[in-house]
């Protein structure tokens, strides 16, 4: 299995989630009750993106799989 390829794919998909949540945030009124939910989605997608960056970093530093330390704070 090509290392790194799936991380690239993950980022692509997360980009889509981030993008659409931003679109929604821009469209919804400031007092819209659903805005909080969209903000949660946006924040979660950002956390996932950060996690993937950290994993990528670990992969590049220690050939990924060997540096099997916990990749991110919980």
């Amino acid at each position, binding site marked *: 299995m090509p290392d790194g390829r799936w991380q690239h794919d993950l980022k692509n998909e997360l980009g889509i*989630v981030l993008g659409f949540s931003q679109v929604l945030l821009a469209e919804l009124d400031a007092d819209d009750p*659903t805005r909080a*939910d969209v903000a949660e989605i946006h924040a979660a997608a950002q956390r996932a993106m950060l996690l993937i960056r950290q994993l990528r970093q670990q992969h590049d530093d220690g050939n*990924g799989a060997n540096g099997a330390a916990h*990749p991110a704070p919980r």
Partner: protein
Amino acid sequence: MPEGPIRILHVEDDPADRELVAATLAGDGLPVVIDCVDTAEAMAAALATADYHVILADDRLPRFDGHAAQRLAAEQAPLVPLIFVSGTLGEEVAVERLKAGAVDYVLKQRLGRLPEAVRRAIREARVRAEHARTAAEVLELNAQLEQRVRERTAQLADREEALRASEQRLQSILDHSPASIYVKDLRGHYIFANRLFVQTVGMEVDAVLGRTDHDLFPPQLADIYCRNDAAAVDAGRAVHTEEPVESPTGTRVYASAKFPLMNRDGVPYALCGISTDITERKQTEEALITARHEAERANRAKSDFLSRMSHDLRTPLNAVLGFAQLLAADGLTPEQLECVGQIQTGGRLLLDLINEVLDLSRIEAGHLSLSPEPVSIGEIVTHAASLVTPLGRERNIDIVVEASPLLERAVRADRQRLNQVLLNLLSNAIKYNRDGGRVTMSLMATESRLRVCVTDTGYGIEPDKQQLLFRPFERLGAETTAVEGTGLGLTLVRGLAEAMGGTAGFTSEVDRGSTFWVELQLCESAAERALDAPSDAPLRSATGRPATVLYIEDNLSNVKLMQRVFARRPALSLVHASDGHLGLSTARERRPDVILLDLHLPDMGGEEVLRLLWTDRDLRNIPVVVLSADATSSQQRRLLTSGARAYLTKPLDLARVLKTIDSVLSDTAIEAVD
């Protein structure tokens, strides 16, 4: 006397004397036949043509004399006795003739003595002949004996030569052997050592012979060798062992075969050893073992890494999908709903991706945990078809399960994994089909195996691209189209099929479509099992009896999501505890109606919380619903048998969470729901 007449050659010129002699002999009763000659030529001719018993010879003849006759007789008939019959033979001549070989002489004046002289001469000739024959036989025997001695000597020489050649050959073989070969007597003295052995010891062969291991090697090594020797002699057969040997470059390892040499009675008289230097081989073996351990460790590390990553990514994905699900149930504009739809699609794809990456890594590392059981093929095929039917409907694609008696049969498989395989094949068959096309599921069986075929009416795969099909991330150009996918589906299908003891493959025709199949082992009947499809009805309904739900979870995003879900059910009140200990104390305090338990808590594992709840008499009866990112069926079974009422996998389907809570509250016994 000879049988038949006595043949006599009479050398005499006088006819009167001839008659007188014949008459005298006949007169005495001797049966004689007499040939008379009077010249040397006639005598020679007579001796050459006939055998005579006696020769009678006159000493003085006109053309011949006794001496010449005697010489002629000695030459031509040496064994025939010759008697001189003469009137004039003087004493001196007579002695001379007797010395020259005549057996007797008879004076003509005293012929009366002749018959007796003839008889005696014949007797003596016979004795002489007997002696001669005996002597000849002795000589013959002697000659034969000598011949045999000569032959035997030659044989022995040959054998000695052969033995020498054999010894040389053996020595040559032993000296060129890549092993050290040696023989010791039972007291440990070397009695043979080949070239390599003496080279290894670094001595001349003469210096080695007669010495013991303690003379040649360091004491601790000599002790080892002696112990191994004794073991071979005691065992009475070959003993194989590894022995260390000191060398200038360090300690080397030898593989030694040691065996006793036995005499004819089977009693050991010496010990032979054959020792081969296996240092390099050992080093290679050790390097290989280290490399294998290293590879296994790396594989484990990779698998662990991916497992952690999968778990860690599930938490934010859980939030993305959960909140998106809530949004979809709210009153948004169609445009906004489309955005939410995109977010849900992206989230699901992300989830597929991490699940598939994790599964592939487990398959590669051989760590995929499977729970094989008999699975009803009809049930799983129709279930999978029903799950993808809405997907097909969006593009007017019919999903058809071909009728077949094989639908009654069962295969040996992990139910969840087989479902995953079929869904993968079906979703591909829809994704890569034409609008208004058809997907057909059909079954074929051999004696022991069953093949599930998924046939589409798509564009087919060009022959030169077919070999790329099962490669991870290979999408054959679909990545540039609107068709979604991770590029791992078929790799995973094949990996899962093989992990379940089956195979996967395909046939394809450009412009006509493709058939992908998975083949598994047939087995006896499968237990019936209800599979239900998710529905978001519970999210929309606001009914239900009042109840308290304790949620033990450390991730605040998940808690927030759950709070939002529960906000839709005013009858349910959610109580939160952020770790195991807090969860247990809250449970004692509030006595909730249901506990939702996350398995990954900061202070203790969810399984431990479950055990502690179970051991507390007051808390034992509170139903527990486990929430976990670990979707393996073995884990589900373990927790369900440890007392969990239900098991839900993350990312959570919120509708299912509520449905499960409703079921538990209405005291409906439910099995694992996934």
